[in-house]
């Protein structure tokens, strides 16, 4: 069976993510899915922008009160770096170096998990220090929904990459699992793309006022 065929560095194709018909379909289908996800997040951004600083009374926290540079900056650096590590992982995937790929993916997962931990700390901080909760105002609902959807994507991405790493740890790379790794890394980059807009539109623009 072609998909299970054993490869060596020499026989490994140049574009393993598109070497079989299944792989081509997966590759294209996932890109289309990302097109849909673009609309999904754009809609969440639109909702956030329409409801930004819309609160029931004057005491409620506004964007310029709650966001701080250090936290947002740290989260951004973690996620940006994890994007680079997953690029390294795919570099080694294309060079048929399974061990190094796993290592870089492991690093990606670690950075992603740190990002998620920071986000949980951050939400907790807002709730306790500013009483800015999901139910306290329309602004709160919109903020937690947008950032929370992104956080949910990070969590799903982590679970996905870990599953792939564990499942394939014994058998190495083949044309059946290479596209799966590739698509998971595309997903990870997309999460990063969304974050670039979140830190710009939500955090930085929030601090500007």
């Amino acid at each position: 069976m072609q998909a299970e065929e054993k490869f060596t560095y020499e026989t490994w194709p140049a574009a393993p993510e598109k070497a079989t018909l299944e792989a081509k379909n997966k590759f294209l289908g996932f890109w289309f899915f990302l097109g849909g996800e673009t609309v999904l997040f754009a809609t969440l951004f639109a909702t956030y922008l329409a409801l930004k600083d819309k609160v029931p009374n004057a005491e409620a926290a506004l964007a310029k009160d709650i966001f701080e540079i250090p936290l947002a900056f740290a989260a951004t650096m973690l996620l940006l770096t994890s994007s680079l590590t997953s690029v390294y992982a795919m570099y080694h995937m294309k060079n048929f170096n399974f061990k190094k790929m796993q290592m870089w993916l492991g690093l990606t997962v670690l950075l992603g998990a740190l990002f998620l931990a920071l986000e949980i700390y951050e939400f907790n901080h807002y709730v306790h220090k500013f009483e800015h909760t999901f139910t306290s105002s329309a602004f709160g609902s919109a903020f937690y929904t947008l950032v929370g959807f992104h956080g949910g994507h990070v969590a799903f991405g982590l679970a996905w990459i870990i599953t792939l790493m564990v499942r394939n740890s014994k058998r190495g790379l083949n044309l059946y699992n290479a596209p799966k790794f590739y698509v998971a890394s595309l997903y990870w980059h997309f999460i990063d793309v969304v974050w670039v807009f979140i830190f710009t539109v939500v955090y930085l623009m929030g601090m500007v006022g």
Partner: protein
Amino acid sequence: MANQQPSSGNPRVDIEYRRKKSAEEMRYQIVSFTLMIFLTIVAFVAVGYEGFSGWFTVPFILLLAVIQVIFQLYYFMHMSHKGHEAPALFLYSGVAVGAITILAFTTIIWW
């Protein structure tokens, strides 16, 4: 099986070329990563610096975000490679639909 392309049997001569090609690509990616980090820092500094008004800062950091995302898409997600015509078409269609949505929500929701 006729509808599947042969998966193996790349001639040995290709290997060196491929290695060189991917090393070169990796260099591009490191450059774009450095630039992305740089742009991020610029954006944070622009917001942290008291001297700029919001009318400058907001469009400026949005522009930086767009540039950064282009790096992500074209280098990290390999959209610069060929065979990405359909993905690009659908991604940009998504961007267009999303942009209209955001435009509407920031202009004609005013109550």
